[in-house]
Each structure stands twice: as structure tokens, then as C-alpha cells.
């Protein structure tokens, strides 16, 4: 069996691989869905804005200025988006390293989500670069700025995208009916997982480490030398909350693709994730508390910034922690989903606080994103969801792998 040479593409009703892919490119299903009706106009406007941005400069569509060089596109698209994509490394760790087989059915969709998130957020990064044609410089090696945290983050983004593509590639092979390719690619999974987890721990924390040199600019309630650890720990519950949120939507939208067995398993999976999130939120809250006490920040509490900080810590860390704990004990799926949403809002709030809101907090004028920046951000998100839907409708992501793939195991 192993030595038998098989054609790369087979089992596609005799079609050639090119014709098969071409036929798959056509849209499936209804075109006038509520999502499409909202998404397409936004994407069209977004593309026009992106063209304007490349013709007239970044300032023509953003509110960025000399005091605030990084705004919504970095603070939300990249820094927050990557935290939400953290579910992939946490789940692959649980399933492939710790062998928690319960979660096996959601690994593929999470890895796909992670991969697309990185692909699109790296894309969003290109929009924010003033001189994007030089983006190859740190890659091809004619000028390695190895002392830069951003250098590390950039390389990790690229390598991690590769690792996630390898982790996901068996699904592509199954879609194309490429048995031999699937076998080879499946063999690479564990290597890609180990490599991917290592990369993730470093660049999740690296995104925080980017701001270490901005010591005098970030409000002391959000700046500490432990930002990298905070970002790493919070990426665990950020990622898993995203898995809960996305999984809940997928279960409704792609209902017909999910097998009966996996439908029944869902409550158990959500419950398990809720428990882990509660633990991670507790660790995070405890760390924040330690830093707060260690830095003697008491005097800062009774200020406008202090209240804002308390809102984040109590309303968006402690509250979802208890929500997760309670919903886990009572097996309340609705509350688990609510906790996931509150946690995600908290992560958005935290990342924006560090990168944008409390950045240059003492400057006379403050940055707020223009509507055009928001539309471009929505364009990125909607396009990602469209691609995600396209893939899920074609490849065995949520649905079971074809029978031949299971036999090969």
C-alpha cells in the first residue's frame, strides 16, 4: 500500500484537477444572503479607499499623525486579530501534544481560521506600510535588523503561516482527492504543530514586546515590563473565546455539514473550553494584580484613566471569569457564549488600550480612527469571512473527511 504510486488527483469523477478547481471556484448557494448584502457594498467602498490610500498616502484616509504613528490598523487588525487567532496554537497543543481527543473535531476549523487570520492581518499590515515595496528587505537578507522585536514578529508571522498551512493541508489534499499528497502532508503535521506552538508563544508575546520601548508614551497602568507575558497569557483565552464564538456561529450557518456525533459533542467541548478560559482569565487577572501592586499604582486609580482601567479589569476580565466558571458548572451554553463575547470585547479593549487609547495619553490632541479606517478594517474582516465560507463549503473542514482518508490512517 505504501509503495504503490498513486496519481496526485483521483476520485473526482474523472475530471482533471484544473477543471475540478475551476468548477469549484463558482459560488455555491444563495447569493442574496443577509451577510452578502452587508458585506459586498462595504468591500467595494473599502477597495476604493485602498486605491486612494496608495495614490495619495496613508494620511489621505486615516487620522494617523506624527504623535500616533500606529492606529486602528495595527492596534485592532494586527495586534487584536493575532490574539484572536491564538486559538489555533492552544488547540493544536491540546489535541496533538496532550492528546485531548475530545477537541479533535474542531481543530481543523480553528487552524483554518488561524491561518486566514494571519493571512489577512499580514495583508492589513501591508496597507499600513508607507513603503510596502521594501517589505522584502527583512526577508531576503540584505538588511536583517535582528535587534528589532518587529523583525522577530515579522518572521514569525511568515513561518507560522507556513506551519498552519501545513497543519491544514491534509484538508486541501482531501478536497482535491490527492491521496499520496495527503499522506505526505499528514506526516508533517506533528512537526508543524511543535514548530507552530513555539513560534506562537514567541510572537504572541512579541506583539506586546513591541511596545516595551514606548515606556514614556503608554499610561503607567498599561505599561509594565511584563507586557509580553500579559499578551501571551491573554492570547490563550482570547483565542479560545474566539473558537467558542466562531464555533457557535458555524454550527448554525453550516448546520448540514456537521455530523450528528459532533453536534452532540459540542456542549462538552464548549464546557471544556469554558473551564480552560476561566483558568486562563484567573491567571491573567492575578498577573495584572501583581504588576499593579508591584508598581504601586494605587494613586493612579482615582483618575479618569484609573476608572477606565478598573472597567477593563473588573468588567472584562473578572466578570467573564465568573461567567465562564458559572456557566461551566451549570452547563449553560448560552452563558458560555455570552462569556466568550464579553471576554473578546475585553481583549479588544485591552489591546487597544495598550496600542492606541493610552498611547500618548498626555498629548493635547488624541487619535481616533476615521470612518475610512473602519471601513477598510471591515473590508479585511468581511473578505476573510467570505474566503472562510468558500473553503468550508468545499473542503472537509467541518464535515467528515472522505472515507478513503480515514482508511489511510
Amino acid at each position, binding site marked *: 500500500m505504501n509503495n504503490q504510486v498513486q496519481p496526485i488527483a483521483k476520485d473526482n469523477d474523472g475530471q482533471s484537477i484544473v477543471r475540478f478547481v475551476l468548477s469549484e471556484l463558482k459560488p455555491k448557494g444563495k447569493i442574496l444572503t443577509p451577510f452578502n448584502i452587508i458585506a459586498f457594498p462595504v468591500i467595494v467602498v473599502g477597495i476604493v479607499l485602498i486605491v486612494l490610500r*496608495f*495614490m*495619495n*498616502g*496613508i*494620511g*489621505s484616509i*486615516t487620522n*494617523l*499623525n*506624527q*504623535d500616533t*504613528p*500606529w492606529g486602528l490598523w495595527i492596534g485592532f487588525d494586527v495586534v487584536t486579530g493575532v490574539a484572536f487567532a491564538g486559538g489555533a496554537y492552544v488547540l493544536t*497543543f491540546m489535541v*496533538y*501534544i*496532550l*492528546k485531548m481527543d475530545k477537541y479533535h473535531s474542531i481543530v481543523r476549523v480553528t487552524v483554518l481560521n488561524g491561518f486566514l487570520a494571519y493571512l489577512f492581518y499580514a495583508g492589513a499590515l501591508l496597507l*499600513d*506600510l*508607507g*513603503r*510596502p515595496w*521594501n*517589505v522584502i*528587505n*527583512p526577508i531576503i537578507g*540584505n*538588511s*536583517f*535588523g535582528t*535587534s*528589532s*522585536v*518587529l*523583525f*522577530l514578529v*515579522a518572521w514569525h508571522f511568515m513561518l507560522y503561516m507556513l506551519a498552519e498551512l501545513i497543519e491544514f493541508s491534509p484538508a486541501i489534499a482531501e478536497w482535491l482527492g490527492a491521496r499520496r499528497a495527503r499522506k505526505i502532508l499528514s506526516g508533517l503535521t*506533528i512537526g508543524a*504543530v*511543535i*514548530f507552530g*506552538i*513555539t513560534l506562537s*508563544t*514567541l510572537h504572541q*508575546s*512579541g506583539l506586546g*514586546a*513591541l*511596545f*516595551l*520601548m*514606548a*515606556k*514614556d*508614551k503608554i499610561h503607567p497602568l498599561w505599561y509594565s*515590563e511584563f507586557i*509580553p507575558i500579559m499578551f501571551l497569557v491573554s492570547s490563550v483565552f482570547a483565542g479560545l473565546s474566539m473558537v467558542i464564538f466562531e464555533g457557535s456561529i458555524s454550527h448554525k450557518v453550516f448546520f448540514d455539514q456537521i455530523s450528528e456525533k459532533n453536534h452532540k459533542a459540542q456542549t462538552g467541548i464548549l464546557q471544556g473550553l469554558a473551564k480552560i478560559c476561566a483558568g486562563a482569565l484567573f491567571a491573567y487577572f492575578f498577573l495584572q494584580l501583581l504588576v499593579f501592586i508591584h508598581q504601586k499604582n494605587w494613586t493612579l486609580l482615582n483618575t479618569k484613566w484609573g476608572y477606565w482601567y478598573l472597567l477593563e479589569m473588573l468588567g472584562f476580565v473578572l466578570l467573564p471569569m465568573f461567567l465562564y466558571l458559572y456557566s461551566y458548572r451549570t452547563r449553560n451554553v448560552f452563558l458560555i457564549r455570552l462569556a466568550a463575547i464579553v471576554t473578546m470585547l475585553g481583549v479588544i479593549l485591552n489591546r487597544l488600550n495598550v496600542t492606541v487609547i493610552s498611547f500618548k495619553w498626555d498629548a493635547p490632541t488624541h487619535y481616533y480612527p476615521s470612518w475610512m479606517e473602519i471601513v477598510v478594517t471591515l473590508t479585511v474582516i468581511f473578505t476573510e469571512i467570505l474566503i472562510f465560507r468558500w473553503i468550508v463549503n468545499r473542503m472537509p473542514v467541518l464535515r467528515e473527511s472522505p472515507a478513503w482518508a480515514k482508511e489511510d490512517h
Partner: protein
Amino acid sequence: MSFNRRNFFKTMCVAGATLAVGNSFGAANSEEQTVEFQGVLYDATRCIGCLACERVCAKAHSLPEPKKVKPEVGVIRKTSENQRTAINNYNTSKGEVFVKNQCMHCNEPACAAACLTMAMYKTKEGPVVWRGDKCMGCRYCMVSCPFDVPKFEYYSANPKIEKCDMCYDRIKEGKIPACAEACPGDALTFGTRRELIEEARKRIFENPKDYENQIWGEEVAGGTGWLYLSPAPFKEVGFNTKMQNSSYPELSKGFLYTVPSVFVLVPPLLLGIHEATKRNKNTNSEENE
């Protein structure tokens, strides 16, 4: 995973290469140390706020000529993508004081440490320069610079980072920076950093009443190429006196140093757990069967 001959040779090769490269780095460093960092001493007691420096700076770097204004107290004029240096006027306990703003040319610049393409670059002569052929416009230098010096052309399709480069091209030709040459009051002195610190100490020692007993830039941010003398406390003339004395790249050094150890330690750990859980699973399934 046994330690066989092949692995042994591999390890030896890597170790050998590391030693060889390490040596060549060491050699390069000892040669570079023979060149001293150069800088400029700005003496605020001598500055009359004539803005000659601003005008020649704009001319030397083909920037639009600055508006002819007299710096007023309470109006902070900032450097911008069109202006690399700006003079401000402060009302202090010692009367009216003018202070010049431009890139500080740190000994260990945060912008250069932040730059992932080495576009921001500390030359061996001292000036920190920006190199357009390398820059990808990420603006991380602006986020990192504690003095907010680099400025970005937001309204250009081919944007540049503008900042003082201490007239690096002129220095290479043996000339002194345009502003130092143009200053009618001798407020700007160009020289090696060591000489400038000695000169500044001498001035403070000879006229202790005229000067605040501090050279701004001697220690702040790990030491800067641009040094300041002021008649009034530095707090009163627009300096952030809360700034740290150690260099800013020091802040992210700890994180960067953990990266190699994570890369060495985490994969074997994960592989180990993977192997351990795999055996568990096998024995379990055997028991079940």
C-alpha cells in the same frame, strides 16, 4: 535521536561556524572603536532665537523654507516632515530661554534598535541616519523614539521619514553640520562627544552662576550625541526630566534574549510530552482491546 557520529560532526560544524563568525564580529568592533562618536553641543545661554539654523537646515536638505516668525513663549513649535529642527522660547526662572529641537543622535538609538530593516542606522561617526532604500515605512521608529523625532510624510505615495541626520553627507566631506556653521552666536559647537563634554564641564566650572549644573544628554537615554547646556532647570525648558538614564533598547533586550532559549527548550519539551502521551494512548488502547 541517538548521538551518533553524524550528529557529532554536525554539532562540531555549527560550533565551529559560531566561533569563526563570533571572532570576525569581535575584530570589526575593535576597529570601529578607533573612531569616536561626534556630536554637537548646544549652549542655550548663547542662543538668541534668530532661527538661522532652521533656515540653513531647510536649505541644506531641500525642505520648504520655514516661516519667518519670532518664537513666542507658550507656543511650542514642533519639528515636522517639512522641518528637521525647531527653536522654542520658554519663560523660566532665569528669564527668556531659547531651546533648539532636533534628533538627539543617541549612543544607543531606540529607532535603530526598532528598525527591522536597519534603515535607521547609527553610523560609526555618530549621526543616526535614515536610508530610504531599506525603509518599509512601518513607523516603528516613531513608536519607539523617546524624543518623538522621526516624522513621516503621511500625504505622499512615496513617503519618507524626515529627521535630522547631523548633516552626515557634510561630515563625510570634512565639513561641519549646516546649523553649527551658520549659528551667529556660537551656540552650536561641533566636535567629538568626549571633547564636547569636557568643553561643557569647563563652561559650567568657569561660570557656575550662568549654568544649570547638568549636561543634558550626557547620561539621559544612555547618552546622546546632541548635548545641551541651559541657564534654567531643564524641567522649565521643555525637557522630559523623568526620562530614564539607561538606553531604551535595553528595555526590549530581555525579551529578545529569551528568544533563543525558547527556541531551544520548547520544541524538545513539546516533543517529549507528545511522546509520553502517545505511549499512554497506545497502552490504553491495548488494554481496551
